[in-house]
């Protein structure tokens, strides 16, 4: 019974707070840049505004363009729903799996890229090709992280990984550190943050993710931006849940424990969002041809995490 309730809370929670997290990152960056900054709640207003507006669709657009926002948002939403953010006591927990997560995000990316190319503008194609280049490098790294986690805990389900870590199954492990570093790098790339992509840029020629959604307006744009915000929340929740799982409630726990888990989740997310804002202020965007170095580094870290497991076992 509780599992169903918590699952429902989770499903709506990730969507409800994602604009706030995005707004908070922007707010932190504004403050660090010496500006007053828009309220962290501004993304809610923007989304509301976009939902009110008419959706203009290019003449050359096919059904793919129209369908993509819904597919993308649904896939990302579903992916976010299966991560145990505050409790592992959820209906979907047994079905949740890191590989499924990667696949769902892949579906979202595939549809966004299709939509970017569908209208036939040069920027959409440019963005789609860059996005695919990033994806082809980031996905293996993400899978390497998944493998090393599953080798440690014997499962690819986040709920069981969390239970394993909370159960004291892992001490301070080099592999965990390496996997964390790799996952952070993947998260930066997948969310189009600096130094891979600049979400705030107006320069069409440098865009990656934004270039693909340039042609969207109204509710379509709201969904595409919503998907981006939920994806950011998803990665923060994932990093927070797996690498800092303390506070996450276990099955059979009381309501109070779940509430503590909720508070811990919010706290973790805002710490990560603040860190992201600080990091983005301190660094410049990298050249497009350096993506391979960056994500190759992430892949290597993931690989090292796996290798070290065997090395430490052998010793």
């Amino acid at each position, binding site marked *: 019974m509780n599992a169903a309730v918590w699952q429902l809370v989770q499903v709506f929670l990730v969507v409800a707070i994602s604009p706030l997290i995005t707004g908070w990152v922007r707010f932190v*960056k504004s403050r*660090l*840049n*010496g*500006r007053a900054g828009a309220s962290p709640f501004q993304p809610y207003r923007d989304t509301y505004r976009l939902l009110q507006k008419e959706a203009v669709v290019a003449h050359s657009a096919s059904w793919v363009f129209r369908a993509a926002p819904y597919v993308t948002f649904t896939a990302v939403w579903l992916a976010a729903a299966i991560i145990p953010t505050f409790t592992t006591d959820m209906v979907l927990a047994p079905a949740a799996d890191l590989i499924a997560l990667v696949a769902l995000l892949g579906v979202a990316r595939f549809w966004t890229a299709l939509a970017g190319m569908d209208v036939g503008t*040069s*920027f959409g*194609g*440019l963005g789609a*090709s*860059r996005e695919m280049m990033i994806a082809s490098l980031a996905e293996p790294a993400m899978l390497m992280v998944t493998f090393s986690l599953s080798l440690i805990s014997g499962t690819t389900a986040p709920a069981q990984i969390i239970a394993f870590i909370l159960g004291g199954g892992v001490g301070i492990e080099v592999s965990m550190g390496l996997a964390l570093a790799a996952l952070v790098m993947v998260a930066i790339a997948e969310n189009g943050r*600096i*130094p891979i992509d*600049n979400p*705030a*840029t*107006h*320069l*069409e*020629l*440098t865009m990656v993710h934004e270039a693909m959604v340039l042609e969207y307006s109204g509710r379509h744009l709201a969904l595409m931006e919503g998907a981006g915000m939920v994806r950011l929340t998803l990665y923060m929740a994932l990093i927070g849940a797996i690498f800092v799982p303390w506070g996450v409630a276990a099955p059979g726990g009381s309501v109070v424990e779940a509430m503590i888990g909720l508070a811990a989740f919010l706290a973790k997310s805002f710490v990560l969002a603040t860190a992201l804002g600080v990091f*983005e*202020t*301190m*660094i*410049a*965007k*990298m*050249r*497009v*041809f*350096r993506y391979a170095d960056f994500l190759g580094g992430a892949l290597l870290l993931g690989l090292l995490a796996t290798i070290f497991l065997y090395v430490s076992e052998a010793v």
Partner: protein
Amino acid sequence: MMGNVTLLEFLSFGQPVEGHRPYPRFQLDKRAWQALVERLLAADWVLMAEWGEPDEVHLALRDEETGDVAVASHPCPEHRFFAVGHARPGAIRLERAIHDLWGLVPMGLEDRRPWLDHGRWPYRHPLARHRAARAEAPYHYAFLAAEGEGLHQIPVGPVHAGVIEPGHFRFHAQGEAVVRLEERLGYVHKGIEGLLRGTPMDQAARIVGRVSGDSTVAYALAFARAAEAATGCEVPPRAHWLRALMAEMERIANHVFDIGAICNDAAFTIMLSHMGVLREKILRANHAMFGHRLLMDVVVPGGVTRDLSDAGAEALRHMLYGFRKAFERAFTLYENTPSLSDRTLGTGIAHSSLVNRFGAGGFVGRASLRSHDARLAPGYPPYGKLGLTVPTFSEGDVNARVMVRFAEVRESLRMIAEILSDMPEGAPRTPLPQVAGEGLSMVESFRGEVLVWLRLAENGTVLACHPHDPSWFQWPLLEAAIEGNIVADFPICNKSFNCSYSGHDL
């Protein structure tokens, strides 16, 4: 021996024109003009500007060896002249514009596509004696082709996502690598030269001061100096110093903001924030001292409209102290951010040979070892007394252009301190004599050398006036600098050039 002929010796075969000051002007007939064009292939005379009149074409040249400046004019009642474009590539777009505006045909010019005329004017050749009716055929502009496996085009602009001026960029790219970039400008053509014809001097000064708003002091100063030269007016010494103060303030304001904007294009926004603060300090000081944040219409023919009070000088000194510290902190931040250096080093290299062929000045030239500065050559007061040094770098990349800006800001700050302590007393303005004449002047704006040529009637009316923006010789280099770079690096290269659209499109 031909090799030793100086520019003035060569032009002396022509007919000297009376009343052109301070540099001579010579009228060349068809044969002499053709000889000049051929001579340009061998001589290292720098093309400074080329412009037209209904039945005449003018060419402003500088002899690098002797430093002499002269204007060669070629009356062409049959509306054809030998093109300078194949001797000086910088002239190609100028001559395309001359054809669009005055209907003079540059003979021998390979590229005969229109430049400023986009087929939207009610008639062709708006400045010609007889305007031509617009052709019925639909207007078509053919971009230069690039063909090959996997090549694709990326059209960018004229309307951009940022709040910048309009211009079209046509990329031919192979994946991310730029194979060719071609610019298409002229979207902000305002008909400046048509507006200037027959206007009273004070109004003309206001128009020229708005040709390119970010260098309004440089343009107003160039116009004022040309008008003063034409009328033989001696400006009081204090006016020279006040003008230099304003010009350096403008230079600093533009340079610091450029540095910030270049870093912002690498998504390093913190630098733009710092630089925005510094620029604002300069603008507020401008307002406190001279009553206008951008110093528009303060420099006028005959002097300046507002004098600097002691209180104003003291406030400026006080502001500069904090400014210098903050500026050096920003420089340290720039130097110590490896992710930023990774973007700027080796990006968008403008080769020194090309820079010299086009005669590009300003930070574009100085980043590639070309040190020409109108403040020194031919020079104008008070810079001779300020000991100006011009920084040059050899790399020619984005970083070098940023470094030129940093160095120039330091030099300007130093000069402002000297100007404040050594400024002579006296009136800041003198009335302009009512004399007819022609004048030419060059002034160093933050971008490079601004040239203004004008012809005045006895009552002070401007009969003809041509303002020339340094961007004419920098835009083509941007096309060359981006080749072989990646598409995503274009914005940062473009920003490091920061050419003027408005000044170029006239």
